């Protein structure tokens, strides 16, 4: 099976590199946030479990998924938690501190001194977390197969190097993890977890990413192009309950963008359905005031996809037809440097 772990220090842009590797090789990406959601689904919310069983939780999740997919796992400590896997390639992304400070400046909208302070805080927290989870605060370079410095290499160049290494080692040709190997790993995991009274539900599967509307796929492609991490329908919000506490109405936004903590709902439907959806979104905002959600209406979306040359404007446009942007409004496959 193909299992590539991609980790790095805060601000090293390893998540972005991981995403590019997954895209390039057609692997499933398990990011830190996705892993946390899967652990919660299979076991319990992360905060309610002892930190020291984290390696086993990670192994259990990855073993299950590895029988169905080749994986890129971008979660801290993955190189330690998953050493028994065949076809494993462990990658560590490094970058000089000045670069990592620069990344945090943009991501957290800070000036340089504040970003440096944040970096040191994040590094200290990470060290502490690693010590609790893996018994070791510092990373050892001999735990990695490939260490890439992105001082001069862009994330896509790093991704290309990793893809070449994966191809060279023939990790895809080894096939997926066999059910027997998974059973063996799960047995070891359960043995350890049983000491803490934790039992996996054994229900874990990755929802196939089947977009329910072509516009969703286009939007996903656009996010991929701009290297924006996304998850498709990761969370359902209950909106109404009956008197027994059963959920009778809920809402599942189309996308979640973890970097911005933002849900995006694409609304490409009839006006009557839009009204219904607007009511749900209003309810969602009342019940979950901390949730950020942005709604994209059909008109906005047509503008966007026309602007990016994704489709021609409709033959019979609504009263306000495709008005694009002025960056690159050629409705043909892209010229290389238009803006």
């Amino acid at each position: 099976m193909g299992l590539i772990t991609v980790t790095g220090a805060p601000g090293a842009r390893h998540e972005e590199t991981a995403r590019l590797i997954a895209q390039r090789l057609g692997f499933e990406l398990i990011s830190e946030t996705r892993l946390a959601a899967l652990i919660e689904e299979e076991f319990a919310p992360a905060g309610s479990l002892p930190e020291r069983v984290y390696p086993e939780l990670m192994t259990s999740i990855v073993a299950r998924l590895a029988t169905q997919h080749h994986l890129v796992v971008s979660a801290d400590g993955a190189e330690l938690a998953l050493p028994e896997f065949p076809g494993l390639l462990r990658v560590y992304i490094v970058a000089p501190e000045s670069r990592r400070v620069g990344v945090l400046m943009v991501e957290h909208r800070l000036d340089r001194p504040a970003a440096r302070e944040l970096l040191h805080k994040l590094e200290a927290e990470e060290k502490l977390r690693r010590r609790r989870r893996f018994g070791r605060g510092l990373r050892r370079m001999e735990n990695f197969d490939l260490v890439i410095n992105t001082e001069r290499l862009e994330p896509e160049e790093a991704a290309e190097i990793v893809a070449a290494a994966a191809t060279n080692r023939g990790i895809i040709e080894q096939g997926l993890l066999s059910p027997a190997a998974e059973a063996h790993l799960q047995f070891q995991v359960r043995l350890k977890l049983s000491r803490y009274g934790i039992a996996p539900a054994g229900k874990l599967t990755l929802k196939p990413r089947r977009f329910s509307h072509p516009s969703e796929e286009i939007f996903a492609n656009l996010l991929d192009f701009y290297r924006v991490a996304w998850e498709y329908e990761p969370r359902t919000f209950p909106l109404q309950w009956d008197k027994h506490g059963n959920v009778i109405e809920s809402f599942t936004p189309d996308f979640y963008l973890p970097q911005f903590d933002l849900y995006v709902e694409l609304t490409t439907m009839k006006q009557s359905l839009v009204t219904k959806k607007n009511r749900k979104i209003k309810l969602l905002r009342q019940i979950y005031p901390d949730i950020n959600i942005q709604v994209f209406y059909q008109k906005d979306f047509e503008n966007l996809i026309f602007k990016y040359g994704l489709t021609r404007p409709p033959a019979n446009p609504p009263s306000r037809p495709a008005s694009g942007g002025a960056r690159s409004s050629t409705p043909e496959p892209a010229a290389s440097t238009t803006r």
Partner: protein
Amino acid sequence: MSAPPIPEIERILFTEEQIERRIREVADEISERYRHGDLKLVGVLKGAVFFLTALARAIRIPVKIDFLSISSFSTRPAAPGVVRIAKDLDESIEGEDVLLVEDIVDTGFTARYLLQTLAARGPNSLAICTLLDRTPRRIVQVPVEFRCFEIPDRFVIGFGLDYKQFYRNLGYIAVIKPDWEQRGFNL
């Protein structure tokens, strides 16, 4: 205001005089903010060229300029690719006060990518100056320190902004008619 000189234009949004006056105001702010700095204007080809040169002329402190361009989205499913720098800066920006000069910020995707890329190169500071800010389209929040005009969610041309690569050279900024596309606009 006199009739628009091009029939496909619905209305002129900002005249040459309005643009010139506003650029001078923003240039004053920039000159003040960076009076002790080491300012470099980084323009994003091609749209920002007109704005950058006008802005640079109105700035009253020493200023360097450089340009870059990025690849654009491809519709070919086999090669969706990712955004990348198509033409990089000629010189390093390490230790400099970099002002990224854009013609327009709308979804924020491009601006965010460029900020991330440039921030990793060790500038002393990094900020965005845009001619037009179309906030109704924003998906990704990016800090815009200097903006000349906020605009509604309409297709605009002129002063560097194109329609199929034309009309960048108009001195004013105009909104095109909604039915322009359907008329089979040809040049």
